[in-house]
């Protein structure tokens, strides 16, 4: 027993240091390799996430500008809804007896795009049947609040300028704001 124990010396046992071997690693060099490995790891993951985050910010954004000119007040007939800007800018331009305003085309119930039904004189949402009057006030279906209005004003050249970065909510009394509609 004792013989075999000594002859079967732990050749590859953990922690043994065999002097002549080149593969063995000094404590010092282990730390430097660890540093190299760690830097490589950080570099790769960092680069990876940098690329991913960069991907979220495309070079070209095919989005229409948030504020846009829609022509002169005379271009809009009284008591009419202009649906020309619906597709590109998600806004209806409405002119009633006394003012022009820009309504958001997002239904205040669940965000579908309602249709303007000229014969029925209302906006009607095809998803859950919410109905809005020409002014944007909700009156049927589940929508709990009126359509939002965008900031509207006159630009330097006399054209109407709609700014979608600012919207006005009726339920907060913001339609009283002079920028929410354009008196004509």
């Amino acid at each position, binding site marked *: 027993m004792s013989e075999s124990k000594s002859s079967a010396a732990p050749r590859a046992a953990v922690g043994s240091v065999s002097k002549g071997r080149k593969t063995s690693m000094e404590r010092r060099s282990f730390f430097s390799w660890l540093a190299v490995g760690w830097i490589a790891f950080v570099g790769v993951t960092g680069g990876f996430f940098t690329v991913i985050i960069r991907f979220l910010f495309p070079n070209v954004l095919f989005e229409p500008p948030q504020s846009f000119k829609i022509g002169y007040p005379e271009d809009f007939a009284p008591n009419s809804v202009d*649906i020309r800007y*619906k*597709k590109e800018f*998600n806004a209806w331009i409405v002119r009633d007896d006394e003012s022009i305003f820009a309504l958001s*085309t997002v239904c*205040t*119930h*669940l965000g*579908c*795009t*309602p*249709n303007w*039904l000229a*014969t*029925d004189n209302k906006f*009607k*949402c*095809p*998803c*859950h*049947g919410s*109905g809005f009057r020409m002014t944007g006030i*909700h*009156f*049927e*279906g*589940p929508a*709990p*609040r009126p359509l939002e209005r965008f900031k509207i004003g006159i630009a330097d050249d006399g054209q109407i300028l709609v700014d979608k970065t600012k919207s006005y909510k009726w*339920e*907060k009394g913001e339609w009283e704001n002079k920028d929410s509609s354009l008196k004509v």
Partner: protein
Amino acid sequence: MNLVAIKSAIDALSAPTISFTILTVIFPFIFPPSDWFEKIHRKTGLWRMWTKPGGLIGMILITAFFVIGYFDVYFNKTLTKADNFPIVLMIYSMWFLIWLGMYKAYRNDIRIEQGLKPEEYNDPDDKVLVWPDLVYIEFIALILFQVFLIVWSILVAAPIEEPANPAATPNPSKAPWYFLGLQEMLVYYDPWIAGVLLPTFIIVGLMAIPYLDINKKGDGYYSFKERRVGIFIFMYGWVVLWLFLIIIGTFFRGPNWNFFGPFEYWDTHKVEALTNVNLSEILWVKWLNQGLPSNILIRESLGFIVTGLYLFVLPVILAKTYLKDMLAAYGPTRFVTLMILGLVMLALPIKMYLRWIFNLQYIIAIPEWFLNI
């Protein structure tokens, strides 16, 4: 009889106010939850629904409806739409499964009345191995289903529409068929309630059933009489408040999300003059003849009181009177959970009727806080 007259009669009956009411009223006579309903269920012969001829007649009636519908100019358009094919399958399979369950339950009920053990006790109690017995059945079912899906996908083109265009929303815009019940709920409730709260309650409530149900009978065998109240409540929630809403959403909802009978022309300009009012407007403007108070909590006070009475006071009253025995049997925690789940479930038809009868939009309407009930 005149087919046109039948069709217009079906159109008139299918208006949700009528069809939903009829279904709700006759439902306890189909799944009788008490002795009184049971008596009429027996007397009127409704129990025959759950016999073999009854099941067959159900299948024939459904088929007759679809055949007549197929040859109808307007219903053909809805029926043959590729999206709606699953609903046709669903109607058949649901009828078959409900019938099968009730058929077996009624046979067992008779045996139990005679003092016999349920039929399931006659099943051979030889051990059946998962492999190969069960796995083979599953494998064959899988192959058959694959064949069916392949044939379906070859015969019917996928209902893919033109590229999305924000300026032209499809009218009507329908959810996938399995979500049409949810979409129907959204007509009556705010998205927060119908889209988040109610689905959560449905899922949590279904998961909670095994913990809430303390009835030890009916374990391992079909029976109706031994758990009739539970079956009635579940069936009402599932068949009327889910499946029927899917059917309404599929066949009875047309342009602008208006109601149309199955044999009616989908007129985009169908006018349904409705003007919704909130409870606060009824209280302050109509009853008290004054403007809405500026303070939100005062404005919606009646809504808060009504909701509080419904959700919190009603269970207490029920616990002390009508459901006294239930509270004793189930204990307070189970009782409260069951009450809240049940009252939330019942809130859906209640809100539907409030909308249909009074044009009531919201009981509590605080769009400022996105809180609308």
